[in-house]
Structures are given as structure tokens and as C-alpha cells.
């Protein structure tokens, strides 16, 4: 069906809908994720999570047939912009969801806002979009980038660690994470090390860490960097000797490559696969049945994005043309989320609990994440005040 035919069909259906009050046109959702190259593991999990929610509902959300259009941004901002323009101009989508990495998120924010498109974010939550560049049309079913570090900062303070050594790659997210940790950490910083982006070998940094006399380590190494770091931290004989607090370093995409090697590592997140929440239990069981692996938090976030959209479409009776009504319905976040109840702040980021997890064996003996505490309750990000 080409665009003109489609537009005509939409017009017809809408006309019919306004008379009968039923049989609305399909809702079109554009899903943007990184599906090729080095970041593909995260993007693939997001797509799998979103698809699972759709399948469970027979291809419908909020009782409406969903046409899901998927695009790969290759982790390149310019390709992301092009894909979003395709969603907006060519596919005439009603909603955009997904987005894996912050650099793509920053690039697509302006075209989305300019076209006044409703957006449901499933992972990336860069600081500017929570603050100065916030939009009333954006809802992040995930978390703001700093949050996972903040909860560990609070945890370190609660535990009474006095000298923490901070490590992150030298790029924006890495620096934001260190700032986030320090925001809630009251002790002294034993050292601050920024490694090269995609650095394979950390032996030099680990030697320095040992010389610094720290009593705990905070590390943020997403993707393959995390696998490298944990393996080498363990081989240097440090795991178990020093508490290791991490963000995005031992998540569901990295643990299968680490297994027992990561046992004892601590991680901050808003959700873990051991959650006792009934919605979460059902999701984990369904995901394992379909894909044969423990879902990562990225799969959970995307699944939750679909649930959020589902709840909003239910409320509006499937109407997407009234953008204000749709956004009010999304803002209510009135559904059984995997993380339990939460609400949206004025910037479209959740005000939610953050937990600390330990890498441990689950009931089936597999290495997974086990919740050990909830240092931050109903936590809001630091930038919401800048959102006017």
C-alpha cells in the first residue's frame, strides 16, 4: 500500500470511526534500534521484548491492530535521523518508540519534537533531554542515564565505604555516570580514571587501582568493555577482595559471556529478572520460553514500553489523532509495569525505585541478578528542575 492510498484509507477509516465509534484504522508505531554493528545485542533484545508484548496481545495494543515498522540506525546519528524522517514523512507513524544509544537519541530528538510526534523511549535517557531540551511529547519507559550510578552512590554511602575508586570510559555517558555517583556518595574519591572508549585491556588501570588503597570500586563499562573489565578484574585477583559496584557492566547481555566469573559483582538498576512482581514473573517466563535466555533489562524496558502504549491506547479508545489525550493517557502510566507502580516527572522520565543487585545463582543454578537492596525509593533524576 503506498502512502497516498494509505492516507486515503486512514481518512476513510477515521470518517467511519467518527460515525460508528468503532473500527479505527491500525495504529502505526515506528521502532528505532541499533540492529547491526557492535551495539546490536542491545537493540536485538529491545526488538525481541517489544515483539513479545505484541504477540501476547495478538498483534494488538489497547485493542488496536498495530503495524510495527522497524528501522536500524547502525549506531550512527545521521542514519537515525534519516530513519525517523522516514517514520514521520513516509510511513506517517502515530508513535515512535525504542532508541538504543544516547548519541542517536540526541540526534533524533529535534526532528521528533519539530514534527510533534509522541515518543516512548525504551533505553537511552541522555541528560539534556531530561533537562533543558525536554519535551512534553517524550515518555521514557526506561530511566535517565545517571540513575544507575546514583543508586550505587547511595549504596556506597549507606555501606560506609570511605574511599571509592571511580572508573568509566572517556565519553559523555561515562562522565555523566561518575557525576551521578558522586551526587549521592558522601565519602572521598580515591581516584578517578577515564579509560579510552572501547579499550580492550585494563591491566594498567587495575594496577593503579591496587596502588590507590581504595575500599570499593565503582565501574561503568557498557557492552563488550564490561566483559573485558570483569574478566580482567577477576584475574587480577580483585573480585571478592574489593566490593565492585557497577552500572551497565554485568547486565543480561553481558552475563552469559561471564557466568561464574562475575559472581559477587554488584549492579544498580530499576529492574531485575528475579523481581517478585507478578507482571514481571509472567514476562520472564514468557521470554525464556520464546527465546531460551534470561531477559536483559533492555528487553524488559522495551516490553514495558509496549505495555505503556497498550494502557494509553486503551484509555483513548484507540484514537491517536488527539495527541493531547494520548499524551495525558501515557503520562498517567496507569498499568501493571514490570517494575511496579511509578509515575512520570514533568520531563517525561519515571520517578521510580532503584535497586542494587548482586550477581548470583538463581533457583535453576544459572548465573543471574539477585536483588539485595533498594537504596533509592521514588527517585527522580537531577535534571527535572531544568525542564521548563
Amino acid at each position: 500500500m503506498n502512502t497516498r492510498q494509505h492516507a486515503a484509507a486512514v481518512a476513510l477509516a477515521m470518517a467511519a470511526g467518527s460515525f460508528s465509534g468503532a473500527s479505527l484504522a491500525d495504529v502505526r508505531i515506528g521502532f528505532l534500534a541499533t540492529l547491526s554493528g557492535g551495539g546490536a545485542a542491545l537493540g536485538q533484545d529491545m526488538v525481541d521484548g517489544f515483539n513479545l508484548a505484541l504477540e501476547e496481545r495478538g498483534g494488538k495494543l489497547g485493542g488496536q491492530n498495530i503495524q510495527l515498522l522497524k528501522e536500524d540506525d547502525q549506531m550512527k546519528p545521521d542514519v537515525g535521523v534519516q530513519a525517523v524522517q522516514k517514520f514521520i514523512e513516509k510511513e506517517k507513524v502515530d508513535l515512535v518508540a525504542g532508541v538504543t544509544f544516547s548519541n542517536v537519541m540526541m540526534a533524533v530528538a529535534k526532528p521528533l519534537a519539530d514534527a510533534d510526534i509522541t515518543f516512548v523511549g525504551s533505553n537511552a535517557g541522555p541528560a539534556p533531554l531530561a533537562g533543558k531540551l525536554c519535551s512534553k511529547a517524550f515518555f521514557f519507559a526506561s530511566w535517565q542515564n545517571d540513575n544507575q550510578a546514583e543508586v550505587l552512590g547511595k549504596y556506597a554511602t549507606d555501606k560506609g565505604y570511605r574511599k571509592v575508586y571511580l572508573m568509566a570510559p572517556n565519553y559523555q555517558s561515562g562522565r555523566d555516570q561518575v557525576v551521578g555517583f558522586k551526587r549521592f556518595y558522601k565519602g572521598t574519591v580515591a581516584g578517578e580514571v577515564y579509560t579510552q572508549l572501547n579499550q580492550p585491556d585494563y591491566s594498567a588501570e587495575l594496577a593503579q587501582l591496587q596502588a590507590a588503597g581504595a575500599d570499593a570500586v565503582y565501574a561503568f563499562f557498557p557492552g563488550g568493555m564490561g566483559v573485558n573489565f570483569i574478566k580482567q578484574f577477576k584475574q587480577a585477583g580483585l573480585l571478592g577482595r574489593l566490593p565492585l559496584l557497577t552500572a551497565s557492566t554485568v547486565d543480561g547481555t553481558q552475563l552469559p559471556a561471564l557466568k561464574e566469573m562475575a559472581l559477587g559483582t554488584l549492579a544498580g538498576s530499576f529492574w531485575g529478572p528475579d523481581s517478585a512482581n507478578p507482571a514481571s514473573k509472567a514476562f520472564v517466563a514468557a521470554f525464556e520460553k520464546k527465546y531460551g535466555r534470561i531477559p536483559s533489562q533492555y528487553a524488559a524496558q522495551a516490553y514495558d514500553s509496549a505495555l505503556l502504549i497498550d494502557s494509553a491506547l486503551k484509555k483513548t479508545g484507540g484514537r491517536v489523532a488527539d495527541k493531547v489525550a494520548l499524551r495525558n493517557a501515557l503520562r498517567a502510566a496507569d498499568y501493571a509495569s514490570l517494575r511496579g507502580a511509578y509515575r512520570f516527572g514533568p520531563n517525561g522520565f519515571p520517578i521510580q525505585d532503584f535497586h542494587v543487585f548482586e550477581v548470583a545463582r538463581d533457583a535453576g543454578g544459572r548465573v543471574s541478578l539477585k536483588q539485595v537492596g533498594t537504596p533509592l525509593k521514588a527517585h527522580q533524576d537531577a535534571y527535572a528542575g531544568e525542564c521548563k
Partner: protein
Amino acid sequence: MSPELLFIQALNGLQFGVLLFLMAAGLTLVFGIMSFINLAHGSLYMFGAYFAAAAYQATGSFLVSVGAGFCGVFVLGALIDRCGFFVLHRRDHLDQVLATFGVVLFSNEVARMIWGASPIFMELPESMADSISLFGLSYPAYRILIIAVGLVVAVGLYLLIERTRIGMLIRAGASNRSMVAALGVNIGWLNTFIFALGAGLAGLAGAMVGPILSVQPGMGDPILITTLVVIVIGGIGSIRGAFLGALVVGVVDTLGRTVMPFVLRQSLDPETANTVGPALSSLAVYVLMAVILALKPDGLFPVKKR
């Protein structure tokens, strides 16, 4: 910074350099003797790591996994050279770059289709997971093993090239290809052997790093760039250059990451030092290469052409 820590960091630099040498030796042989730029060298390294991880999962033996990494990629190298790459030997460098770039895209995707997009499991066997104590700092024993393997390979290559008949042919080929062919040597098979040997060394490097790095699609791309830096600094085609270039790059990179931020912290306020230090250390290797090439365009140890 204490002298003990400095020594440990120098050891780390040596270890990284030795790893780079395993990669660089193959690349520089193929480039210097066959005049063939193989961007897919990083993909061979990736396959080495995957083969090793697969073998380790199947057998649980570290020795078998390293053997699988080297032999698997040696055979793979011989096959792809015989089945296709030999056509490229006679093309100009740009065609080789373009074709092998295509091979890189293909290999990364094949790895992803077979083993998935996420990193796969590979660990160090218990027996080698210990760390030894050096000046009060614990140092992973496995790193010492990497250094030892790298040095053994370096000596082995030296003996192969300087003391054997095949080495003589390789040396002759590097200086004057057509002359070797004219003497009745089957240069096609010699080329295939060199290519497979280089591939096998890349596979060995991949197998050796499997336990310490993330085994995932595209893992060979960043190391390829650093390896190219090494062989250009060392002088293309020279094994000695590759060895010394790898050590120089390994040490400069490691000390750039550790000593430079330390020095900056002494002279600048912490905030500025934390901003400037990491940026400068990312540049260190590239600045080194730019300076060396600007002064000695043929690298530090150029091979004499006749």
C-alpha cells in the same frame, strides 16, 4: 608514582606489545612479501577467538582451545587464499582494501549469525587463574604466559626466517619477488603458506585473548587499526620492525594512560587534569605515529628493496 608501580606498568606495556606483535607479524609478512593489504586480518583474529571459545566449551581444555585457534585459522587462511584471495594479489592496493573491507563486513555478520550478537562465554581455567605477587601488587599469571608465548613466537619466527630454506625464500621474496619465481620456486604455494601462517598467528592472538577479552562480532576491528599503526611505525615487511614497533606502541599506549594523567595532576588542577589527561592518552599512539612518519616516512626499520 612509585618505581614498583612503574615497573608493573612497563610489564603491562610489554604484554600489550607482545599481543600486538602476534597480530602484526602476520600482517607485515603478507604485506611485505605478497604486497597484499589484508584488512580482514582483524576478522581472522576474531575467528581465532571464536574457534578457541567453541573448542573450550566442547572440551574444557585450554591447550586444545589455543590449538583450535591457531590451526583453525591457519586452515581457514590457506583456504581463503587458495579459493579467492590469490586473485587479489595481482590487483592494486586500493582494490585489495576495498575487497577485504567487504570481507570484514561479511565476516562480522557471519560471526553474529552463528554465535549471536552478544559476547560468548570463554574463561580462564582454574589452574591459570591465579595471580602472583610482584612488589606487593598482585599480577595475573596469565599475563606472564601471554608474554612468554609472544616471545617464543618471536624467536620461532626469527629462526624460521633466518635459518631455514623456506625462510630464505621468504627473505628473497621480500627483496625481489620475480627473481624467486624465475628460480623455479612455486611462488603461489609460498604465498599461500605465508598467508596461512600470518592468519594462524592472528588466530593464535585471538585464542590467547579469548579468556581476557570479550569474544563478540567485530572484536577484530579496533585491534586491526592498532596493528596497522604498529607495522607502519616498524616499517612494512620487517618482522624485526613489527616486533619493536609493537613494543613501542604497547609501552607508549600503556604509559600514556597511566603516567601522563599522573604528571598532569602534578601540574594542573584535578578537574582540568581529568579532562585533558584521558583525551591526550587516547591521542598518544596516533601522535607517535604521525611524528615518526613525518620524520621517517618508511618507518623505523624499513626493509631494503632491491
